[in-house]
């Protein structure tokens, strides 16, 4: 087994990994930036090493400092979490060179899958369906035009090194293509220092469905069902669920997509946990989108329905153990859904809302899992991703899990900062959401029909009453020295 694991991350995912390590009796090492000395992941770790300034570039992205910290404490392995250095092939390669176990795929697999164009080529070789378009970066707008005519409009331009929705432009008509190409290239250059852009057919009202895979160093690889993550804003997932309501109605797709994901991963020489993202159109055609070469934020929904602990398997695989699970061992039970609770003002363009969590009360009871990175009194720093807590529910059916999430959200209180709790309460009550008629543009449409919550007169009355009570000054607590009592008070 691994001797000691350094977690090159922060927040809820660092806490998640530390919990797995503690359950496996493996010492855990946290790293922290200057503003994270008080962070929950530090409090829970066996050891902790400061690695620099608040800005990610000065700490969590500093490969040298992280490798150095691992050396100092005698860690033999590094878990990268998600984000930060997790999909950085150079970091994985550096670990390999330094004789440290990188808990993830080999750097060569990250390298091949990191560029969207090389990933497209790889998927094509593996026989995994890809959207019609180029595998290579475009040289100019005219090349784009030729391909767009071939595959038909609408098309989408994407940054080859992109992610997170940056450097992407949807184009409906040929006359808009040239400007869109220019915009996408320059945004790609700014965001990723790589102006390369490629073109694909745009899939209309697609679902985002992804396949979780696990592979060991002995040639074994399995898929663990799918997750649907069609509820997105600005190409960021907000609600994830497993299974996918679409796949439940098209059960033959699960094995097809699972096998396609495994084929692509094998082609890349993949090991450890990974996720193959697909777009699925209304006819059930699916297209390779990209491979995420790390643990996903939304991995708990897969854990909930398969009863398999993905993080523990990451650790075992990294230690060289065999994947004893066979494909036929994987079965799905019930339904799971995750809400990402963010420090953001959901009523005001989802602006980040860092600051002190002045009060915190979290839900419990059956079917509720909380992966939290915060505690009452924690000052959410403004330097990092605003994810506070993942609220994950499990229940027998999709309807039950939605009701359970609503109940759990109603039990949740996060004071002092703004969060998206109410946004979720509204969304989960939406009849179309309940009908599971999902696609990646769902949220944009929903915002236009969103109903405003109405408080009851009793609630409004009560709010005034308790505000008055809260305002009432406490009985003056003046600690007066005894000799003061003798002073003549007018």
């Amino acid at each position, binding site marked *: 087994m691994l001797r000691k694991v350094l977690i090159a991350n922060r927040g809820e995912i660092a806490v998640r990994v530390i919990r797995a390590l503690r359950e496996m009796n493996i010492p855990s090492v946290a790293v922290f930036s200057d503003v994270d000395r008080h962070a929950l992941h530090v409090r829970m770790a066996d050891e902790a090493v400061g690695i620099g300034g608040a800005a990610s570039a000065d700490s969590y992205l500093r490969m040298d400092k992280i490798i150095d910290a691992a050396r100092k404490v005698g860690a033999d392995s590094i878990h990268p979490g998600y984000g930060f250095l997790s999909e950085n092939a150079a970091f994985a390669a550096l670990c390999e060179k330094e004789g440290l176990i990188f808990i993830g795929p080999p750097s060569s697999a990250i390298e091949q899958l990191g560029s969207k164009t090389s990933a497209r080529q790889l998927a094509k070789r593996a026989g995994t369906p890809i959207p019609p378009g180029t595998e290579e970066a475009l040289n100019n707008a005219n090349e784009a035009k030729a391909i767009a005519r071939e595959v038909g409009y609408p098309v989408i331009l994407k940054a080859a090194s992109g992610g997170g929705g940056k450097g992407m432009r949807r184009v409906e008509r040929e006359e808009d293509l040239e400007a869109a190409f220019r915009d996408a290239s320059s945004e790609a250059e700014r965001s990723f220092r790589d102006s390369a852009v490629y073109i694909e057919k745009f899939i209309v009202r697609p679902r985002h469905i992804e396949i979780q895979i696990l592979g060991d160093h002995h040639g074994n690889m399995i898929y663990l069902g799918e997750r649907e993550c069609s509820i997105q804003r600005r190409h960021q997932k907000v609600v994830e669920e497993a299974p996918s309501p679409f796949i439940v109605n098209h059960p033959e797709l699960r094995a097809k997509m699972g096998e396609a994901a495994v084929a692509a991963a094998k082609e890349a020489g993949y090991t450890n946990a990974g996720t193959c993202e697909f777009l699925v159109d209304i006819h059930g055609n699916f297209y390779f989108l990209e491979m995420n070469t790390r643990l996903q934020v939304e991995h708990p929904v897969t854990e909930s329905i398969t009863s398999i602990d993905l993080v523990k398997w990451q650790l075992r695989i990294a230690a060289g153990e065999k994947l004893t699970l066979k494909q036929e061992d994987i079965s799905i039970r019930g339904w799971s859904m995750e809400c990402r609770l963010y420090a953001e003002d959901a009523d005001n363009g989802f602006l980040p*809302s*860092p600051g002190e969590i002045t009060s915190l009360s979290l839900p419990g009871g059956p079917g509720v899992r909380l992966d939290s990175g915060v505690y009452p009194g924690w000052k959410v720093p403004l330097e*990092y991703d605003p994810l506070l807590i993942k609220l994950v529910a499990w229940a027998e059916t999709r309807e039950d899990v939605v009701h359970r999430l609503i109940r759990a959200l109603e039990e949740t209180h996060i004071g002092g900062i703004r969060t998206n709790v109410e946004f979720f309460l509204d969304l989960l009550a939406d009849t179309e959401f309940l009908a599971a008629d999902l696609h990646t543009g769902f949220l944009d449409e929903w915002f236009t029909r969103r109903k405003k919550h109405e408080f009851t007169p009793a609630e409004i009355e009560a*709010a005034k009453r308790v505000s008055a009570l809260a305002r009432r000054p406490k009985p003056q607590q003046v600690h007066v020295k005894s000799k003061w009592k003798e002073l003549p008070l007018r």
Partner: protein
Amino acid sequence: MNEAKVESMVWSLLDGHRQLEARVDREGEDYVVAFRGRKLRVQLEDPRAWNGSGAGKQSSGIAKITTPMPGKVVRVLVEVGAEVKAGDGVVVVEAMKMQNEMKSPIDGIVKQVAAVEGATVNGNQMLVVIEAHAG
């Protein structure tokens, strides 16, 4: 109404048999009261004129552009005396990996620039004052 204070800033209210749990947080001059995850804002004091985000929505007179969130000023796009149109960006503030461009709500002249590039700002901090063109 029967009120029981159950925790600091938390009350259980009984109106007849109806039970409501109310959690109170202060936010500036206001109180924010939460019932089962839903938050309601209560203003006990008179809202002060020309203060807070509401002020930015004026279409004439003076507009004070304030930060809607804490963050870092990454760019100041205007100088004192500059002319701006409604919708022009004036300051870019970054927090939690997101950049937000603050826009002028009115046509006018920049009267004051309090924002400094690289500085950390709190929520509701004044960044720029713009005076509308007369008439």
